[in-house]
């Protein structure tokens, strides 16, 4: 088998409908994008949610003493010994 046979491969023309398909794909790409203001609103909402969570976690971190005193104040049992 000779590699020079590769030169026998002929050139062909691109089908005429390809450009329409490309235009369609570009139109679909631009339709699928979200408006800028929606992106910013979503980002700000997410950032607020994130910072609120961090703030709550830091401020009301689980302190065993606090949990016990809270349980006592509302007469809750904080153990499983029901018949002591």
């Amino acid at each position, binding site marked *: 088998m000779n590699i020079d*046979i590769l030169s026998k491969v002929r050139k062909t023309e691109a089908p005429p409908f390809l450009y329409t398909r490309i235009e369609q794909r570009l139109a679909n790409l631009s339709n699928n994008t979200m408006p800028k203001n929606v*992106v910013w609103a979503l980002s700000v909402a997410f950032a607020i949610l994130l910072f609120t969570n961090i703030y709550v976690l830091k401020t009301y971190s689980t302190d065993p003493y606090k949990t016990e005193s809270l349980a006592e104040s509302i007469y809750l049992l904080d153990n499983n010994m029901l018949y002591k």
Partner: protein
Amino acid sequence: MILIVILTKHSIPQNNASLQISDIIDLKLNLQEIYNSHKDEVYNLALHYVQNIEDAQEITQDVFVAVHQSYSSFRHGSSLRTWVYRIAINKSIDFLKAKQRKNRFVFVTSLFFENSNDLKHNPIENNHPGVMLEDKEALNALFIKINQLPDNQKTALILHKIEQKTQDEVAEIMNLSPKAVESLVQRAKSSLSKNIKQSEG
């Protein structure tokens, strides 16, 4: 912050964010111009890589969508033709890799699910329209061997032997020195002849 970056990236058509309407019209006109002057080159190059009409059409579309998206970042450091060629080569290689991954996945799933309608072995359908009937058998066998070559050897061989480009042109497209291209073509030729000898027994 990551979300902001991701959302912003997806929300704005890449590189077209700050473009005015006139720029967009210019881009569209440019795309049509670029398409008209390079469509056959891109389509033929894709055909040489995949040897399949439908896949070559898919790659050609990918190439011109990429050209549209990154035209504003084209720095005119190389000629437009070279730039389009580079995109076409990258898209063809990416397409083949994605297809191989898909075939591997289909093969593995078909082993575990007996009722799967997917083929256990998905042979590459070769319907290159540039291959004449009398050379079809020999060229198909040769293309099977070419498809097993490393990407850079395959690219050098396709550009030099099928596209009939000079070593300097190939070097410019592949961003290599002409010597490196020569060595790639030589290595491709020797591995091809070794493979052919092995298969012929």
